[in-house]
């Protein structure tokens, strides 16, 4: 998946598991940028009685690098606190939850938002902001959209925040991708290891359909994020580009204290999860590096560049699809570094490669979601982002509907290598390879307003995800 359960250790700690990062110029408020960080993956909507929530013991952060050094210049921190009204019932709610302060809601969660800058200055933007409940069903949460709307907090100055459950917006055919990289639309071309199990091509199946996720969404003026508060329209101005990543951290020591009948944690927070470009830790980094990568900051990502330069998936494709990727095979065997992927994922794309576009942040190699904030939203966006000729889409930031699986798969297959080597001709399949899943596979639509991800699936109406 994008980054759901992408590393061995974090797969056992879903509350702290960063699953997706989105960063885009808000289509309905183009003077602002929306940042979205998702956690707690693959929530079956009916998962009661202890429905999903953020971790009170987890520090959630959204980092912004606007100087290109791989270190945060602006950080938003989110701290959660859970309150139980009545510990003498097992129920999440004892009646319909009609408002965020409903006495029927037994287990509420609140959070604070703090902004830190590179000088260490902190500013609390909000405190005790309520999360909405999970979407349980027509009896418990009869008007869920209203509840969720009430949980959007205006922070002043065009800033807004939301934290709570949303419908999973990321779509992927997991079952096919992780069955030895066998996308159903291309199953007839797959080598199948001689098994010939499924020789027929077919449509993709969205494995994340009907699941929910927990979202932290923040919308702020562009100038809050850019270097020197830049809010101009010059696409080539380096101050227009920001690099975004999210993280989750836990305190270093955790104690299951039988004497106090409590669990407590102490010590400094240590990062256990991070995410910027989708699939980076999932399919670029090898298994032996994944847990370590999750503890690191982007500033040190040069040590992972060799995995980008020679990605394992690119090495596998010619063998898995015999005769389909001959030019990629030659490129692989040439040993040439994948300068296209190094740019897309680690430095940003310099000016001059794509007309009217750049999101280059300098020579420091850092996995960041780079967004050129001077590029306005597209009226008719393409889910294929830059590959679809849409400069406002991934890998220029990422919108909720961007087909990052197809974009990255095609890039890895060689579709973008011609940007850095005019003598290279991508295989025709490189522009087509796909898992066959699009936003059309989702039953719940995205919103055209903040927080953009759809109303979460109801437990009652989605009893089996």
């Amino acid at each position, binding site marked *: 998946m994008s980054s759901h359960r992408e590393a061995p250790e974090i797969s056992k700690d879903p509350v702290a598991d960063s699953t997706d990062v989105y960063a885009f110029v808000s289509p309905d408020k183009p003077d602002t940028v929306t940042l979205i960080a998702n956690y707690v993956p693959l929530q079956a909507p009916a998962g009661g009685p202890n429905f999903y929530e953020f971790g009170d013991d987890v520090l959630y952060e959204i980092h912004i690098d606007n100087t290109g050094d791989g270190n945060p210049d602006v950080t938003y921190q989110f701290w959660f606190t859970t309150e139980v009204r009545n510990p003498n019932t097992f129920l999440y709610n004892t009646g319909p939850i009609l408002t965020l302060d409903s006495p029927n809601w037994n287990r509420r969660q609140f959070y604070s938002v703090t902004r830190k800058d590179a000088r260490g200055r902190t500013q609390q933007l909000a405190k005790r902001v309520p999360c909405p409940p999970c979407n349980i069903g027509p009896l418990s949460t009869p008007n869920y959209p209203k509840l969720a709307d009430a949980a959007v907090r205006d922070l002043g100055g065009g800033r807004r925040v939301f934290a709570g459950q949303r419908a999973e917006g990321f779509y992927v055919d997991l079952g096919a991708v992780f069955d030895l990289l066998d996308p159903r639309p291309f199953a007839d071309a797959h080598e199948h290891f001689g098994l010939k199990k499924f020789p027929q091509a077919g449509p993709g199946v969205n494995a994340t359909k009907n699941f929910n996720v927990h979202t932290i969404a923040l919308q702020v003026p562009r100038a809050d994020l850019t270097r020197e508060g830049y809010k101009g329209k010059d696409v080539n101005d380096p101050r227009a580009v920001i690099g975004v990543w999210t993280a989750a951290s836990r*305190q270093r020591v955790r104690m299951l204290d039988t004497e106090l009948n409590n669990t407590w944690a*102490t*010590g*400094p927070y240590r990062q256990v999860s991070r995410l910027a470009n989708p699939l980076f830790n999932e399919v670029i980094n090898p298994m032996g590096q994944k847990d370590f990568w999750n503890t690191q900051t982007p500033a040190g990502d040069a040590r992972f560049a060799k995995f980008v330069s020679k990605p394992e998936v690119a090495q596998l494709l010619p063998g898995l699809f015999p005769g389909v990727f001959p030019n990629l095979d030659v490129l692989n065997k040439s040993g040439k570094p994948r300068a296209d992927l190094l740019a897309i994922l680690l430095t940003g794309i310099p000016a001059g490669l794509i007309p009217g576009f750049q999101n280059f942040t300098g020579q420091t190699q850092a996995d960041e979601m780079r967004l050129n904030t001077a590029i306005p939203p597209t009226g008719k966006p393409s889910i294929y982002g830059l590959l679809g000729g849409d400069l406002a889409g991934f890998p220029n930031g990422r919108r909720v509907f961007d087909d990052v699986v197809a974009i990255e798969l095609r890039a890895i297959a060689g579709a973008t290598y011609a940007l850095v080597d005019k003598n290279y001709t991508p295989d025709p399949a490189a522009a087509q390879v796909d898992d066959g899943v699009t936003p059309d596979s989702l039953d719940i639509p995205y919103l055209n307003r903040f927080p953009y991800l759809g109303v979460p699936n109801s437990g009652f109406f989605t009893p089996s995800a």
Partner: protein
Amino acid sequence: MLHEQQPAPAPEPGTVSRRKLIITGASLAAAGVAVGAVASIPFTANENADASAAAGDDPKKPVMVYLRPGGKFDVFVGQDRVQLTDHAFAARLTDAVKAL
């Protein structure tokens, strides 16, 4: 695997309560020893007076001490960590563990 020891009589001054010990690995030298909320840890005032007070006074702000090889301690309290070296205390801990 964490293994918590059974309750034992109160320690003598300057010793370590067995029941406060958590062995975090089969080899003390390799894995170190973590000590939870030990009010009797012989901190000197100038090493970490705040941590010592917190250990005894505030159960919501417990102190965790982790013994590394070489007599080095990581002391965790709140969101902070301090490091110190105390070979004598490390030796007492080692002896206590060996006696288990």
